[in-house]
């Protein structure tokens, strides 16, 4: 991503592909190494999706395979009018936005703290990264049993010492309970990206601003924050990709109960437990349409980051 590396990437295609006598052969030789990966991706990700699309137009419960029939957009109207499914759309939005924003803000705070020099900084960094490195199901089990349990969980155990209340966290605030566990896992990720952003700042520029009498806040507001913008966007984008699809935490902590079923969990349940293949597929297609809307926006962000780098060459 340095200037030296992007320059040759951007330049060659123009003349190598035009002027060579055996241009077509060479072009294919250049493309050939790409093909295995491309063909593999199309076969394993795009074909199943096309199949999902086809199935979504059928009324098909796998317990009654003989009753399969074409139903047009029937499944879609059923899905869209289904209150539970609409609720899971809302849950997915709340979960994603809540977790991404909270972990971004916390991650920014931690990154700013870790950007300073203090004794044991390396160790603190390692402690902070650890939550991101716990297997998601294990992390969800940890929160469910070891922290949230109303009788012997650590949270209520610590509250006991200060004489606080002993709430049943998961029953009282199920969605917040899931969000807290995800924020704990994703804050380190945001911190890592933002810390890398902080450390790539131009320190001479900051020194100059300080010499000119800028306060710490002014340096943060007018130099650091604009510089961090692309890192914040990248963190939000990558976090969203993963949290929109979250299955592990919802499945483990509440099994989708107490109004916490998000779209991935609902689709899983519709076909795996209710065996409604057609309905599940329609819901799946709707998830994809939603994702495409987010993705167009997200890809625009990435490509602007990308173009910025190429143009700097």
């Amino acid at each position, binding site marked *: 991503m340095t200037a030296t590396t992007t320059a040759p990437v951007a330049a060659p295609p123009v003349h190598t592909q035009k002027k060579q006598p055996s241009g077509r052969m060479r072009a294919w030789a250049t493309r050939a190494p790409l093909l*295995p990966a491309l063909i593999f991706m199309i076969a394993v990700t795009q074909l199943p999706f096309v199949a999902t699309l086809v199935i979504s137009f059928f009324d098909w419960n796998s317990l009654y395979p003989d009753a399969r029939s074409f139903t047009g957009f029937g499944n879609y109207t059923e899905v869209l009018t289904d209150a539970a499914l609409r609720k899971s759309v809302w849950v997915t939005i709340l979960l994603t936005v809540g977790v991404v924003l909270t972990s971004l803000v916390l991650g920014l705070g931690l990154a700013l*703290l870790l950007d300073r020099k203090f004794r044991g900084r390396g160790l603190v960094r390692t402690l902070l990264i650890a939550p991101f490195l716990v297997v998601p199901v294990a992390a969800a089990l940890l929160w469910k049993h070891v922290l949230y349990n109303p009788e012997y969980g650590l949270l209520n155990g610590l509250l006991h010492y200060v004489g606080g209340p002993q709430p049943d966290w998961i029953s009282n605030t199920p969605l917040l309970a899931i969000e807290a566990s995800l924020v704990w896992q994703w804050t380190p990720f945001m911190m890592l990206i933002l810390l890398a952003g902080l450390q790539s700042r131009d320190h001479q520029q900051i020194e100059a601003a300080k010499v000119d009498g800028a306060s710490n806040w002014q340096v943060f507001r007018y130099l650091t924050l604009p510089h961090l913008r692309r890192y914040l966007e990248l963190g939000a984008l990558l976090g969203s990709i993963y949290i929109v699809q979250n299955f592990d935490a919802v499945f483990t902590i509440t099994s989708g109960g107490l109004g916490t079923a998000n779209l991935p969990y609902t689709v899983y349940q519709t076909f795996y437990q209710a065996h409604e293949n057609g309905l599940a597929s329609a819901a799946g297609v709707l998830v994809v349409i939603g994702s495409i809307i987010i993705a167009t926006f997200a890809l625009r962000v990435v490509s602007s980051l990308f173009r910025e780098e190429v143009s700097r060459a």
Partner: protein
Amino acid sequence: MTATAVQARPSTTQSADPTPRRPKGRGLGLVAWLAGIVFFLPIAWMALTSFHSEEDAATNPPSFAAPLTLDGYREFFGTGGGASPWPSLINSTVASLASTLLVLILALPAAYALSIRPVKKWTDVLFFFLSTKMLPVVAGLLPIYLFAKNTGMLDNIWLLVILYTSMNLPIAVWMMQSFLSEVPVAIIEAAQIDGAKLPTILTRVVAPIALPGIAATSLICFIFSWNELLFARVLTGVVAETAPVFLTGFITSQGLFLAKVCAASLVVSLPVLAAGFAAQDKLVQGLSLGAVK
């Protein structure tokens, strides 16, 4: 980053902090320590609980000084009765290693074509790879399940290998594209003039230079495969069960299995924790698809 940022880096890492010797810094250092401890506390508590007896694990207020025992681990590994986790740990290892290898075999030439000998519309191809990552897993899960059922591939670890490869390939192509861009084109052209073919160039010229990046890519692919639950949950059963699926057996675990749950969670997380700690810096670069350095 810009050329200036790259040139500035040596000076910033050596003279380190822009604002050293500030009295205010010590207070903020304490805050950082506090934050680190708060974030690590659940893991530390999980580790301590895993060495307690089930009676001591399930008390309120928590018992910090209870005697230590390996019973939780004995229970987890099945020596105290119950199912052994070994088959699932072995399945996870096979699935993660095999898919990581397959990802490397497919991604390395692709990244090479995209970074060193760019094809026309190379950014379009890169974005196609990234866009597949935004296709939700549930969008293709049912057809894959039906396909597996009809071809007898259900509960087969190699099906997971293929799916994990498709899950990680886009990330790997992006990451390696950025790592391979660092290999000077002149060296490759020199090798070509000497008559070297693609496999030779990849293994003898490109790989040694891009090795740290390739290692980081492999590590991240391994971690994601090791962590994956949804595919494994739907497509495996008895024979090909992976470690995360084994862990789901504890979801409804009540009362007296707390030490065992902690031991299990810790053992299954251990490979990822070890790998992640060992490669913290490369991890960041990789996870941000090479866009952040």
